[in-house]
């Protein structure tokens, strides 16, 4: 597993989220897509959470980095 900093992981995750956003029709971008902790998040919400370093955003960054084969150091 490669090691990256949190800030690098955040950039990767945001790039992936923006790519996801582009795949969606405009009407879908603000609509709930992913349920985390039984709370609904649209892709735009997720971008906001990651950008603002909220608890959900940080957790999402850690999970996504792990899934992409990176360990945050």
């Amino acid at each position, binding site marked *: 597993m490669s090691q990256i900093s949190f800030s690098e992981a955040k950039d990767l995750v945001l790039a992936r989220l923006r790519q996801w956003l582009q795949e969606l029709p405009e009407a879908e971008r603000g609509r709930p897509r992913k349920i985390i*902790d039984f709370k609904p998040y649209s892709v735009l919400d997720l971008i906001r959470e990651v950008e603002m370093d909220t608890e959900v955003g940080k957790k999402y960054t850690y999970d996504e980095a792990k899934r992409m084969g990176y360990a945050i150091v």
Partner: protein
Amino acid sequence: MTTVLFFRPNKDFAMQYASYWLGEGIPEAQRRGYRVIDMIEDACTFDRLKAVLEEEKVDVCIMGGHGNPTVFTGFEQQIVFKACQGDEVMAGTISHFLSCSVGQELLPDMVSKGAISTIGYQVDFQFMVNESFSIEQDPYAEPFKDITVTIIKKLLDGATLKQVWEAGVAKCNEWIQKLWNKTGTDWAEVIACLEHDRDGMIALGNKESYVLPPKIMRLTIPQIAGLAFIFFLVVSHKSPQV
């Protein structure tokens, strides 16, 4: 009679999915001859749950609700079990919790207070939705419903805790494999959620425990024909001769 209790608060967006998935277990329970207690919406409070569990012998509890490591909530997110208080009412039951993170502290505490066994999640439960579809037909939510219903059916069939957990994990893997070649980030996220939930699924308590399913007499067609013939003979024998 073997009794199964469903606890399904469904007032918010995400919980409506959970409530529907758990509800799919009700006909499965009825088909197997269980007596069903279905607690929904405002019935999903600690007081009501406690009253039911004290009044009746409930063998299986299928629980949905918001959660964190130390709290499980019901209707309008009112606290049902908090910081490991109140969970003693679950003593003697086998349960499934569709709730986030309760597997970290609450479920182990519940088992230490006499719950026979339980299966739940030690992570935040994640799933995907597509609002263009109804809850019942949402293709992104379908794998998560299937996993939940698989766990419920396996419990009701009298499988051991270990077998139930294995069936839940196997169903996650089956869906991951099925969706692997789908393109698009939506499906990649569905797979990510499945992996996340699978890795966070936890079974606690006696791993050989199981619920004894009710016995239902099922007759084959020749048996029914035979019984009808005997009935006919008896009735015709009793008929007054003219």
